[in-house]
């Protein structure tokens, strides 16, 4: 199928394009930008007049809940939610049930996902067996089965010796390790940022130094081993500074932040809003501002959805007993646009955080629209504000602190490898 995306404003951060350009797609790849390649005859023309055309979003963390947690969400529901949100590539963390520590599981997951012909998935394998933080997982075999990196998700490695050896082993094979820094001891029982709000609400706290203590350990081990480490879900101002210094020093580290943390703070907990029970916790306004600055100056390479569908019953609980996490795949683009508007960030720089930058961390060829790139495309209307409601969300998870918000950007078409996998309406075709 040959597709001509006509009349749109093309925003392609990696190639520094922000201009009125047509897109020509053939055999699942970008065949031409601006000018039609010789002999190109479109089977279908998408009228993108008044719309923005961007690379499909690349999300570094989306929990699809398969295998094992299908009552929360399924591959079918969540991969459809992904394309409805313009997300065409996503990394899924290993904290499924059982965890992704078996090559067979990874193969089954990728096979199931590719049979759906929706977003492409990139499994992140378990760094240790069963994510227990004691024995190394079979990284080479998992890599062979399709894992792109190795992680503990939110499970701790309590024994620093194990973490050191895991990083050494990964470095030996040239694999990246993704780690969310949190000291398991000082955060024990905590459910909210250890600050004024948690004190007032009587919620057990997770101090900011739970993150920075663990991050200091990780950075020392990176210094010692040279392992490429991606720091996941930064939440504190001090951690942003530490990553900034580590990068200046030349350490092979990258980092991301969850889209919720770019906008929200502990203040949003209100009277125990369990939708704001997130991991890591929403922190102070000062931390939130530092995260925004970090995304702005590139210390934080990528914004991810940290998509975590939770069943409704698990949210209808007292805050500390409620299931943590928020749905996010369909909000990643709107929340990125909202941040760009509020902070007056150029659209190219803003969208880099959800396209070319995460693609670089994943080491995949998607995330841009140069000639020859995979035709993963998101066409959206930046002028339309969409109200977030349980009905508007395709994800099985309806849990989001943004329910009732009107957020910018409505996805009109999503293409994965040149196929239209999602569209809201047909116009003048």
């Amino acid at each position, binding site marked *: 199928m040959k597709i001509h995306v006509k009349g749109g404003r093309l925003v392609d951060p990696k190639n520094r394009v922000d201009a009125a350009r047509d897109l020509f797609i053939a055999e699942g790849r970008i065949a031409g930008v601006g000018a039609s390649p010789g002999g190109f005859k479109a089977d279908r023309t998408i009228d993108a007049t008044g719309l923005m055309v961007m690379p499909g979003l690349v999300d570094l963390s989306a929990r699809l809940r398969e295998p094992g947690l299908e009552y929360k969400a399924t591959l079918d529901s969540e991969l459809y939610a992904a394309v409805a949100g313009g997300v065409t590539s996503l990394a899924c963390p290993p904290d499924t049930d059982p965890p992704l520590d078996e090559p067979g599981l990874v193969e089954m997951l990728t096979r199931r996902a590719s049979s759906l012909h929706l977003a492409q998935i990139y499994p992140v394998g378990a760094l240790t067996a069963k994510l227990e933080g004691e024995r190394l997982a079979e990284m080479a075999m998992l890599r062979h089965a399709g894992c792109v990196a190795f992680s503990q998700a939110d499970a701790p490695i309590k024994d620093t010796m194990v973490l050191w050896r895991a990083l050494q082993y990964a470095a030996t094979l040239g694999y990246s390790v993704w780690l969310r820094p949190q000291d398991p001891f000082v955060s024990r029982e905590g459910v909210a940022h250890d600050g004024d709000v948690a004190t007032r609400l009587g*919620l057990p706290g997770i*101090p900011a130094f739970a993150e920075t203590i663990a991050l200091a350990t990780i950075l020392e081990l990176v210094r010692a081993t040279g392992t490429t480490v991606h720091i996941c879900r930064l939440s504190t101002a001090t951690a942003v500074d530490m990553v900034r210094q580590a990068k200046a020093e030349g350490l092979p580290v990258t980092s991301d932040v969850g889209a919720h943390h770019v906008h929200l703070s502990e203040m949003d907990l209100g009277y125990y809003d369990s939708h704001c029970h997130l991991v890591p916790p929403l922190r102070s306004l000062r931390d939130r501002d530092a995260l925004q600055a970090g995304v702005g100056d590139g210390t934080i390479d990528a914004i991810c959805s940290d998509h975590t569908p939770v069943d409704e*019953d698990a949210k*209808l609980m007292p805050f500390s007993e409620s299931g943590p996490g928020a749905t996010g795949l369909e909000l990643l683009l709107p929340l990125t646009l909202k941040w760009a508007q509020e902070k007056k960030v150029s659209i190219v720089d803003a969208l880099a955080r959800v396209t070319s930058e995460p693609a670089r961390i994943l080491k995949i060829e998607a995330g841009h629209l140069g000639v020859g790139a995979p035709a993963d495309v998101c066409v959206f209307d930046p002028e339309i504000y969409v109200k977030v409601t349980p009905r508007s969300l395709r994800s099985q998870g309806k849990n989001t602190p943004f329910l009732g918000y009107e957020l910018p950007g409505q996805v009109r078409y999503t293409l994965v490898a040149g196929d239209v996998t999602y569209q809201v309406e047909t116009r003048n075709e």
Partner: protein
Amino acid sequence: MRNPQLNEKGDLQHLLNVEGLPREHLVRILDTAASFVGVTERDVKKVPLLRGKSVFNLFFEPSTRTRTTFEIAAKRLSADVINLNISTSSQSKGETLLDTIDNLAAMHADMFVVRHAASGAAHLIARHVAPHHHVINAGDGRHAHPTQGLLDAYTIRHYKSDFSRLSVAIVGDILHSRVARSLIHALNILGTPDVRVIAPQTLLPTGVAQLGVRVFHNMNEGLRDVDVVVMLRLQNERMKGPLLPSAQEFFKCYGLTAEKLALAKPDAIVMHPGPMNRGVEIDSSVADGGQAVILPQVTFGIAVRMAVMSILGGGS
């Protein structure tokens, strides 16, 4: 965001915490309680204000004193009282908190008195129930125990009358104490100029000064010239591990003895929400001494709970 305790007209719909309670509501509760103190001293100790109403005591955490005083208060208002100790019933069968509430609401409960180990449980229930139900928080996690805070305020008002001249010291495990949080808010709303907390750093929540208190780590400094000393119970399980080395050491540093009490004003009163650990936070000579008002607190507690129930349930 609307205060979840008040209805659209600004009337008290639930009692969930003292924080954010408008001063006039708080004073009304104390004044109403004063009128009930007389009732509790009569031969016939009943008034018909809640006749025909059903009060469900839902205790997801064990309690004897608080549950009993709520039960007495409801009965003196002529309500029907049903006591449920849920830790031993449906929760152990896997029923969710809100399913339990729905079932009890279907039995035509008018008022829920709820104690739960999780902070915010009473808020969750209040948000969930239909508008004709009332929820009284009888203690949620570390967060709030508003009727205790109110009865403490009532006791202080009874003995000291004018809050605007008082120094009050709250001593002990502030970190885990819903009693301390509720009393601190009540004292601040009533205009107490000097509210102090005295504890080691391990028993203070982060940023506790934000609640409107002065922080002391030393008993001898913190007790100087105060009018009221409130001793908090130290749970047994807190006495070992990383918070404190031992009960003995805690008593040495933070236990209230006659010698330390002498640093307070001569007419200072000593309060304790109970149950007391003699020899851990308080010496028997003080607990049984002339300055202690610990037993009157219990008596006033019934009147305060009658006041809260009659204000919530009397309107409809």
